[in-house]
C-alpha cells in the first residue's frame, strides 16, 4: 500500500522511465545559481512557481505527498529515482525548503483535512509558497520562549508581535507562525501554531541586509493581525507539538535527508563543489603543491563523507536503531563541513579571495562566502543546539539546567535583562 491507497503502485523503474521521458521533453537545462535563495529575485520566484505548475500538470509534483492533497502518493524510492533523472535540468528548487520539505510535511502531519486540501494542493500547483515564522528578536535557540501574542476574540485570534529570520517571506503566501496563547501556562504549554496569510495590511515585512550583501531574510511586524480559529494547526495551546514536528522536518531538510526534496540530489551538488576547488587549484597554479593538494583532497573527502553519513543515519532512523534526535548528527556535520570547506577555499584562493581587479568577482566570492561561513552553523538551529540534542536526547546525558521550567511563562525572565527593569 502507498499513501494514495493503491495496492499496486507503479514500480520505481517504470516511474523512472516515464519521468526521464517527460523531463527531457519538458524541462530546460539547469541554470547557474538556480535555487540560490540569497540571489533569487522576483523573476526567479515567478519562474519557480510556473515550473511547479508545469510539474503538477505533468503528474510529477509532490511525489511523496498523498493524492488527495495534490501529490501522487508514491514512495521515497520513486522520489530518489526522479531526483537522479532530473540532474542537470531546471527545477523549482526555491520551493523545496521550507515549502515542500518543512512546512508541507508539518501540515501533512498535524493540519486539518481542510487545511491540507486547500493549502497543500495549492502548493503542489505552484500557487502557494510557505515560510516559517518561528524565531523572534528575543527568541532564537530558545524557540519556546516566543512572545508574539495571540489573543482570542470570538472566532478569531488577534496577533501582535514580531518574527525574524524568516527566509524569503516577502516572496511567500502563507506562514506557519508560533505564538503565545496562554501566559499563565508553563513555557512550552501556552503556545499555538497558526497558518497565517502573509500579504495583508496588518503584516509589515522588512528585509534584512546580510554580510554577503543578500537580503533573503526578513523581519515581520504584526499589528493586530486577525487570524481565524480555523487557521490553528494542531491544538490550541499545543503548538509546541507542532513546532517539534516542524523542527524534525527542518533538521532532515537541512541535513539533506528529506524524502520531500525534489530536484538534483544534494550529493551531486556537494561533489560538483569539489570540482570547483580542483579548478581553482589549477587556475592558481598550485596543482603541484603538496599542501594544497591535501587540502583539495580533504575538501573532497568531507563532501563524500557527508553523503555517506546521510545514508547511514537514514538507515538508522528508518529501522528505528537510531532515535529521531539522531537527525542532528547530519545537521552538525553539514555545519562543521561547510565551515571547514569555506576555510579551505579561502586558503586555496589566496590573495584573490580578498582583492582583485574590478569585475573579476568569481574568485572574490570565496572571500564573501568565508565572511558568512557561520551562517551554515546557525540557520536551521545552531550547531550548539545540535550538540545539546545529540548529547541529551540521543545519548541520554543530563539536560541543561533551565530557570524557566515549571513556572508560568509570565514570570519567566526573558529578552535582555535591562528590558525587564
Amino acid at each position, binding site marked *: 500500500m502507498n499513501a494514495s491507497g493503491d495496492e499496486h503502485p507503479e514500480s520505481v523503474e517504470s516511474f523512472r522511465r516515464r519521468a526521464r521521458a517527460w523531463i527531457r521533453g519538458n524541462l530546460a537545462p539547469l541554470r547557474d545559481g538556480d535555487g540560490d535563495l540569497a540571489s533569487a529575485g522576483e523573476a526567479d520566484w515567478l519562474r519557480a512557481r510556473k515550473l511547479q505548475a508545469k510539474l503538477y500538470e505533468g503528474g510529477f509534483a509532490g511525489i511523496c505527498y498523498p493524492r488527495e492533497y495534490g501529490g501522487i502518493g508514491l514512495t521515497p524510492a520513486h522520489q530518489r529515482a526522479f531526483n537522479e533523472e532530473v540532474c542537470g535540468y531546471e527545477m523549482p528548487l526555491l520551493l523545496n525548503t521550507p515549502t515542500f520539505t518543512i512546512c508541507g510535511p508539518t501540515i501533512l502531519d498535524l493540519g486539518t483535512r481542510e487545511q491540507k486540501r486547500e493549502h497543500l494542493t495549492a502548493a503542489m500547483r505552484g500557487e502557494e509558497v510557505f515560510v516559517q515564522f518561528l524565531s523572534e528578536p528575543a527568541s532564537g535557540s530558545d524557540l519556546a520562549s516566543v512572545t508574539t501574542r495571540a489573543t482570542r476574540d470570538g472566532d478569531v485570534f488577534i496577533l501582535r508581535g514580531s518574527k525574524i529570520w524568516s527566509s524569503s517571506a516577502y516572496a511567500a503566501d502563507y506562514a506557519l507562525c508560533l505564538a503565545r496563547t496562554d501566559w499563565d501556562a508553563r513555557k512550552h504549554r501556552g503556545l499555538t501554531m497558526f497558518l497565517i496569510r502573509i500579504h495583508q495590511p496588518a503584516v509589515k515585512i522588512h528585509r534584512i541586509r546580510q554580510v554577503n550583501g543578500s537580503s533573503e531574510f526578513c523581519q515581520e511586524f504584526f499589528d493586530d493581525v486577525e487570524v481565524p480559529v480555523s487557521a490553528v494547526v494542531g491544538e490550541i495551546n499545543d503548538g509546541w507539538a507542532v513546532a517539534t514536528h516542524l523542527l524534525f522536518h527542518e533538521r532532515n531538510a537541512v541535513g539533506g535527508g528529506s524524502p520531500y526534496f525534489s530536484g538534483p540530489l544534494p550529493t551531486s551538488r556537494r561533489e560538483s563543489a569539489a570540482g570547483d576547488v580542483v579548478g581553482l587549484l*589549477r587556475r592558481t597554479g598550485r596543482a603541484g603543491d603538496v599542501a594544497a593538494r591535501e587540502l583539495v*583532497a580533504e575538501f573532497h573527502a568531507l563532501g563524500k563523507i557527508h553523503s555517506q553519513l546521510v545514508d*547511514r543515519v537514514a538507515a*538508522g532512523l528508518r529501522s528505528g536503531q537510531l532515535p529521531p534526535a539522531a537527525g542532528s*548528527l547530519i545537521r*552538525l556535520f553539514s555545519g562543521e563541513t561547510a565551515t571547514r570547506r569555506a576555510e579551505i577555499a579561502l586558503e586555496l584562493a589566496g590573495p584573490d579571495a580578498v582583492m582583485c581587479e574590478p569585475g573579476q568577482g568569481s574568485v572574490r566570492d570565496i572571500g564573501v562566502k568565508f565572511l558568512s561561513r557561520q551562517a551554515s552553523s546557525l540557520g536551521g538551529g545552531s550547531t550548539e543546539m545540535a550538540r545539546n540534542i545529540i548529547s541529551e536526547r540521543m545519548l541520554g546525558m543530563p539536560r541543561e539546567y533551565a530557570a524557566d521550567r515549571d513556572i508560568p511563562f509570565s514570570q519567566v525572565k526573558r529578552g535582555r535583562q535591562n528590558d525587564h527593569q
Partner: protein
Amino acid sequence: MRFDLTDDQRILQSATADFLEKFCPVSATRALHEAGRAFDRDIWRHGAELGWTSLIVPEEAGGGSVSGDGLADATLIAEQFGRLAAPGPFVVGNVVAAALAQAANAGAHSGLLGRLMTGEAIGTWACCPPAGGWDPVAGAIEAVADGDGYRLTGVHDRVEAACDADVFLVVARTADGLTQFVVPAGAAGLSVSPLATLDLTRGFGRVGYDGVRVPGTAVVGTPGGAAAAAAVERQFQIAVVLQCAELAGAVEKVLEFTAQWMSDRFSFGRPLASYQALKHRFADMTLWSHAAQATTAAAAAAVQQRHDDAAELVSVAKSYVGQRATDIIQDCVQLHGGLGVTWDHDIHIYLRRATVDRVTWGTPSEHRRRVADLLNV
C-alpha cells in the same frame, strides 16, 4: 555498528562478540603481552571456525560469506576485533586468503589456502619498503629467474605477525613485472627479526631475503601484467578497509566506556556528563564515530563491488578514520583525567593500537595525497 545488517550478519556479529569477550578480554591480551606472545594459536583456530579466515574466500574455494558480501561480513568481525583490541593477524590473514583465492592459479595454492582457513597455518603479507611509505608496489623486492624458479633478494619492513607467520605472501618484481610469491617461513636465506612497537596487542617484524630460492609454483597469479598490479592494489584496499573497520569498532567501544565513566564520575556534586562543555565535546566525538563507520561501510561496498572509485573511497575513509580515531581516543583520555594516563586503565591499549593503525597502511596525510592523485588534480 551498521544499521543495515541481515539477520545472518547479526548472528555472525554477536557470535564473534560473545567469543572474543569470553576468550580475548583485554586482561587476557595483557597477559599474553607479559608472556611475550602476540596471540594464542588455539583461539585463532577456534575463531577460524567462526569465519575469521574464510569470509572473503568464495564458496567454490572452500570459504563463504553469510550475506553474499564477504568484505562487509569481514568488516563486522574487524569491528569486534577493534572493540576488544583483540590480538591475531586478522587483517593480513584475510588479505593473504583473498589473494590466494582470487589468483588465476588458485588451484595450485588450494592446499595452503585450506590450512590458512582452518587456522592451522598463519599467513601474512610482506610488502612495505624499508625506506618508508606504504606503497606495496614501491616495496617490491627483486626476483631473478633461476632455472624453473626464482631467487628473491631484498627486505620488507613492518610486516605484521612476521615472527608468527608460517608463510609470507611476498611482493616482488621479476623481469615480467610485479609478481607475488608464497614463501614458507623456513625457506633458506629468509630471516625474520622482530620490531619494537607501541602496540601491545600485535607484533611486527622485518623480513630479509638473502637469495631465497622459490620454485615457479610459488608464483601467485601470473608473473607481471595488469592483473598482478590490480591484485596488489585490491589487497591494499582490503587491508585498509579492514583496518578502518577495526578503528571504527575501537572508537565505538572507547566512547561507550567513556560515556559510562562520565555518568559515574561526580565532581562538584554532579556527574561529568552534566557539564555542557563536556557534553558538546562528546557530541562531536559521537558524530565523528558515526561518520567513520559510514565512510568505512561505503569503502567496503565499493571494494566488494569493484567500483571504479574503490581506491578513492578507501583513501577517503582512511584519511578520515585514521585522524578521527586518534582524536577521539586522546580526548577520551582527557575525559578520564589522571586515570587515563595510567598503565592499569585499558584506554592506552586502544590508543596504542589506534596510533599504530593511524600510521600503518598509510597515514591520513598520505591517503589525502592519494585522493588528490586519483582526482587528477
